[in-house]
């Protein structure tokens, strides 16, 4: 059976199982989303937004779409996937099922817990009804698919004037108990006025079995709030990820989403920012370093709707072997959004002849008093710089690594958790195959 048919066939059973929450709008939301997915199916290369990224090869698997088996894993075996150097809250899932053993949640002053719990309990109903599925794209069939089957993921609600004292890590493990597994986590994150939170998200396969994750995250940043979000995408070569993240910002809020894509088979990021107020700052950073036949596709959208806002977008890509990069950065400045400052930069280095990058900046500016800039470069390593370094005694491999590290560096500078920065730096050094000989 085709994956679409399989999903369609299993929807009723799914709805029956999760029907406990029928007194909220969620039931209708799921049904509508399901209809949309059923009508449109998975996107194909004919779809302009999926022109360079074919899902064909990852859709052909016979995925288990309802993993049931609760499996336990020892913390010691997965410790390395956590940012364990510092204290943090943790929301951990194993094959789509919440692991209380590995998690560290909170209801003390703020809610850092599970979406399934929030969907069931009446006290969360107002928040859920007010926010759930309000900014996730209605026209994206892949997002609709997630919405139709949404039941589990992280639920984070920070009330106003609260600084969450430690980062929150959201980690999805897949164990390989299922030969082929489809995961559809759904995260809802609401941050109140003047509040501040840092979140790290990671999807990690623990085996070589095939995993496809289709994740949707909705993030709401209220007035004056600050959210720093980090996505670590360094999965096994058998794991693919479609990450759909939607951010809505109110006035004077600062949100940054940093995406580090070093692994996986196919990684598609749909990241959309909607500015709903003045003096908003949106930051989108990305570093992709891939090889083999890996693919990383970053599709971003920034909607400037009100005056005096800024957006800063910087994506760097290093492509080895036969890997493929896609960058599509859309920035829309609506007519009312005067005095917008919108910056977009996309720099790519193709290391090997077989590597490709498809880069497409799309600026649509309808206001006249704005400062917008965009730049896109595709290059090779500078041979003069290489010779310069080698002539000083730095071997070719290290010189290469140092140059590539230097290239990616400015996107690294934005990481505000020092331990995470060190981690990412080390990951990059490892990815580039160099021992840099000094602490970066």
């Amino acid at each position, binding site marked *: 059976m085709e994956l679409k048919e399989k999903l369609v066939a299993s929807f009723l059973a799914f709805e029956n199982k999760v029907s406990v929450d029928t007194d909220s709008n969620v039931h209708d939301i799921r049904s509508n989303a399901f209809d949309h997915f059923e009508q449109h199916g998975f996107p194909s290369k004919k779809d302009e937004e999926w022109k360079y990224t074919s899902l064909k090869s990852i859709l052909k698997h016979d995925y288990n779409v309802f993993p049931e088996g609760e499996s336990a894993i020892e913390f010691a075996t997965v410790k390395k996937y956590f940012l364990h150097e510092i204290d943090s809250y943790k929301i951990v899932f194993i094959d789509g099922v919440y692991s209380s053993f590995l998690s560290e949640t909170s209801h003390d002053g703020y809610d850092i817990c599970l979406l399934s719990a929030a969907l069931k309990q009446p006290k969360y109903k107002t928040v859920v009804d007010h926010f759930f599925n309000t900014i996730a794209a209605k026209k994206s069939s892949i997002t609709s698919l997630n919405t139709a089957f949404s039941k589990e993921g992280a639920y984070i609600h920070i009330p106003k004037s609260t600084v969450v004292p430690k980062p929150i890590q959201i980690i999805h493990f897949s164990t390989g108990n299922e030969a082929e597994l489809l995961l559809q986590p759904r995260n809802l994150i609401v941050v109140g006025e003047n509040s501040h939170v840092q979140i790290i998200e990671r999807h990690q396969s623990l085996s070589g079995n095939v995993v496809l994750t289709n994740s949707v995250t909705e993030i709401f940043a209220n007035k004056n709030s600050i959210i720093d979000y980090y996505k670590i995408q360094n999965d096994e070569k058998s794991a693919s990820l479609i990450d759909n993240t939607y951010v809505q910002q109110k006035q004077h809020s600062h949100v940054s989403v940093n995406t580090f894509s070093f692994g996986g088979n196919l990684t598609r990021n749909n990241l959309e920012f909607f500015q709903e107020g003045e003096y908003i700052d949106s930051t989108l950073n990305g570093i992709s370093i891939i090889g083999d036949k890996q693919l990383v596709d970053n599709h971003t959208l920034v909607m400037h709707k009100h005056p005096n806002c800024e957006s800063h977008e910087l994506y760097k890509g290093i492509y080895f072997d036969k890997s493929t990069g896609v960058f599509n950065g859309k920035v829309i400045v609506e007519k009312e959004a005067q005095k917008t400052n919108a910056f977009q930069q996309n720099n790519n280095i193709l290391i090997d002849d077989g590597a490709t990058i498809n880069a497409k900046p799309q600026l649509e500016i309808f206001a006249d008093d704005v400062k917008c800039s965009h730049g896109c470069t595709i290059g090779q390593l500078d041979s003069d710089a290489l010779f*310069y370094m*080698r002539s000083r005694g730095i071997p070719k491999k290290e010189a290469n690594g140092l140059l590539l590290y230097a290239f990616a560096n400015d996107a690294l500078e934005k990481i505000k958790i020092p331990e995470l920065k060190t981690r990412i730096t080390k990951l990059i050094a490892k990815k580039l195959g160099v021992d840099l000989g000094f602490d970066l």
Partner: protein
Amino acid sequence: MLEINNLHAKIEDKDILKGINLNVKAGEVHAIMGPNGSGKSTLASVIAGREDYEVSEGSILLNNEDLEELAPEERAHKGVFLSFQYPIEIPGVTVTNFIKTAINESRKANGLDELPAKEMLQKIREKAELLDIDRKFLSRSLNEGFSGGEKKRNEIFQMAMLEPKLSILDETDSGLDIDALKVVANGVNKLKSQDNAVVLITHYQRLLEYIVPDYVHVLHDGKIVKSGGKELALELEAKGYDWLK
């Protein structure tokens, strides 16, 4: 120390060096002069091992060892240093980290342990002082946004740190103001010993007043057309190159 025999080199089928012979002994300073485009920088690059050039004939020996098969970094590990006519900007790598890496890579290649951090710092301080370099400078990205003169001074700082056996200074004087020229020349002279050698590529007699060469060679169209003592530089200053063609 350096022995070049009948060296021919070309790039993209264009012959640039057409039979160079040069013999530099330990303790000596040689100056190479010659018109623009005569092949001076090419010669320097070929000695340092730049792979874009093809050596079609002849040989380069360093302390009797043929360099032909050696990569640029291996030549550096054996004591070859080239101060670039146009130093390259490396954003994101500080001067300090760069030089630390370079030194430790050389040490590693020569079977030595890494230089302890304390000694490294001490050495950096000492050499920065010798070349009158502000310490703040050292935490900046290598050559990025440096003025022309600052870049040249930084090249000599690296030379001082690496303590090469054979230093080739390609137009290190151009871009330096008078005071900086004195500082840099003084630095080079201090580093000079009976065990190392310096090849200066320059257009100007002025530098040679500060770093006095034992020999002066004139390179023209890929060949050394005249060699002499330091007075040859004065003669060239007065007469130009036409009389040698």
